């Protein structure tokens, strides 16, 4: 019986991939200009295929900055925080999604951190207040980052009714308000536009608790 279930799962997966679509669009600010570095992702969870080892990602520390500054990952991804500076860093996060701190690593590699809940994780360095990074944990591997013109190409979008959300670090638009429900069929909607209220220079409180979960 379990084999049968597994078989059906594989078939479903194959058929899903067989019927996957590509979604193109733009993320713009209120004034119509493209927003670079925004993350567009599928909010509908897609269970990971069993047996597939957890994905891995890296948030590097180079020249007292997090690289990349914004790191979108799928739930369950383990993230390594290698330190390429010749000084100590103390990477931490107080985000509800994942609270951790990796005290004073220099040259050595701390054990990776697994992010098992979707949400926004603000990452800082306790001894360098200006160092800021964001790890966006999304429910599925279906996500994309906008280019300099704000354009994105979302691949492997499953057919049917889906919820697609857009997020940016400086966005003041709640994630639910930046979510579009789309029906993906033989001819996927072209040129989907997400509008975000972005205030680039605005310091923004990191949200805690249940608020702001993607």
């Amino acid at each position: 019986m379990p084999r049968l279930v597994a078989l059906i799962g594989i078939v479903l997966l194959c058929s899903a991939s067989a019927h996957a679509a590509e979604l193109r669009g733009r993320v713009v600010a209120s004034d119509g200009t493209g927003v670079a570095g925004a993350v567009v992702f599928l909010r509908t969870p897609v269970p990971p295929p069993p047996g597939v080892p957890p994905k891995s990602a890296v948030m590097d520390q180079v020249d007292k900055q997090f690289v990349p500054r914004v790191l979108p990952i799928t739930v369950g991804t383990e993230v390594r925080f290698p330190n390429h500076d010749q000084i100590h860093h103390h990477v931490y996060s107080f985000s509800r999604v994942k609270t951790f701190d990796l005290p004073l690593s220099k040259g050595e590699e701390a054990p990776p951190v697994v992010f098992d809940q979707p949400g926004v994780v603000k990452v800082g360095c306790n001894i360098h207040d200006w160092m800021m990074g964001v790890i966006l944990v999304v429910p599925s591997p279906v996500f994309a980052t906008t280019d300099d013109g704000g354009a994105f190409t979302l691949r492997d979008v499953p057919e049917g009714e889906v919820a697609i959300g857009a997020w940016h670090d400086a966005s003041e638009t709640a994630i639910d308000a930046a979510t579009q429900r789309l029906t993906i069929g033989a001819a996927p909607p072209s040129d989907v536009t997400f509008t975000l209220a972005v205030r680039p220079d605005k310091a923004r409180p990191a949200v805690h608790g249940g608020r702001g979960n993607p």
Partner: protein
Amino acid sequence: MTWWATRRLRTKIFVAIAALVVGLLLATLWLVEQAVSRQAERSLTHELMVTGEVFQQLLAEREERLMSNSILLTGDFALKRALATYDPATLATVAVNYRERSGVDLLWILDEQGQMLADAAGREPAGSKAADRPAVAAARETGKPAAAIAAVGDGLVQLVAVPVLGPEMIGLLVLGTAIDDATARDLETRTGSSVTFLTADRLFASSWDPATRGRLVLPTSGGGVPYLTTLPSGRHLSLLVPVAASLASPLHALVQRSWDEALAPLRSLRRRMALIGFGALLVALGVGVAIAQGVTAPIVELVTATREVLRGNLEHRVAVARHDEIGTLATSFNEMTGGLEERARIRAMIDKVVSPEVAHELLARGLTLGGELREVTVLFADLRDSTAIGERLTPTALLELLNAFLSRMAHAIEQERGIVDKYVGDEIMAVFGAPLDLPDHAERAVAAAIGMTEALAALNAERAPAAPLRMGIGIATGTVIAGNVGSAERMNYTVLGDVVNLAARLQGMTKEHEVGMLMNEATQAALPARFATRGLGTVTVRGRAAPTALYTLDHPRSS
């Protein structure tokens, strides 16, 4: 004006000097007082303005200190980690702990939305909204530390709200120090000025005692300009310094400095100046008295001298011991009395040389040549046999005798208001009716002749047993020219005319007619009835064409 006019000169001079000195003194005192008081006011005002600035700096420093303390506190990783738990129970203890550690009066921990998580004082419940509290709103808006002065509970608190970064704002730490009476007293110690924090309707803190606080009023206008306030402890210069605060009505710091205390040196100066002024006044009054005395004393002396002169004492002189105007006046006075004395002496001398009447006439009419026609009676008297008498006597004795004779004759003539015109040796010429108007000049001349005869008899009686003196008298009445005769430099008052010659001739003829006196017809005709006259016929007098009728007095003693 009447008062002034009737006062003594000494009083006037004294009053004038005293008024001048008092006026000058008062003006000086007033000017100095004005200058010093203005200076004191200016420096006190300046001090107060500086205090106002220092005061604002002190408030700013307090805020900065609080701010840097708070920033250091919020950098504490343990605090960040504790805050990230968002557990009110834990954070309440954290708040108390941090308040103790930093020594502040108020410590709140808020979440990033501005909700109260913990209040060290336990007054504000967890979960209450604090987002729109002063400083908190600004800190949340800008993401940077913000400060404010606000009312918390029933007191005034200087607040700072500092975001806690993890790495973005995960919450806020609010620290506050109370602005209470102790703060005001501390500021008073540091600035030397009394300090009160108040709004239009409320007094928050003050360094004043409770009694004085009740008297403090916020002026309706005039911020930034010092003004005077009267308080139980004296006058104070007050300055209203605006303090930025998040209150319903504007908060002010009332900075006050004692005006009376600042002016104490001025008061002492004023006392000293009044003392010096009083001394100067006394000296000036003394000097005034001396000056008044110096001016009036010689005047009094001059007045005394004038009275002496008025009484006829022309020998009185004023002592002169000065060279000013008064000295000049005294000298002039002395010269004047000298002149008067000289004139009186000359007048007395003139009276002796000429008859008083002639002297008077001369003085009255002035010494001018010329004369007037008048009817007069001229009398000539001559001592008979004087040559023989002269031979018997020494010149001194002769002069003595002549003087005795002439003076008695002159006396008799003057008795009848005649004037002795001249003496020519033992001869006397007298005129009646000039220069004095005498209507009865003929009668007077005859009366004088009788008087002369009697006077000679008396003289002879005195000289007995010496040989008696005899004389002849000629009297003629007629028109003459009377006036000053001579040169412009030297002149005589006399009468000229035929009558004068006639009288002289008649005198000469007495001897041959053996009578004491002869008169012409005009004289005889002018005599009243009581004089008995006797005609002696007519003679032709030398130099006269018409014969002249001669008369003599028949009974001279019968009158």
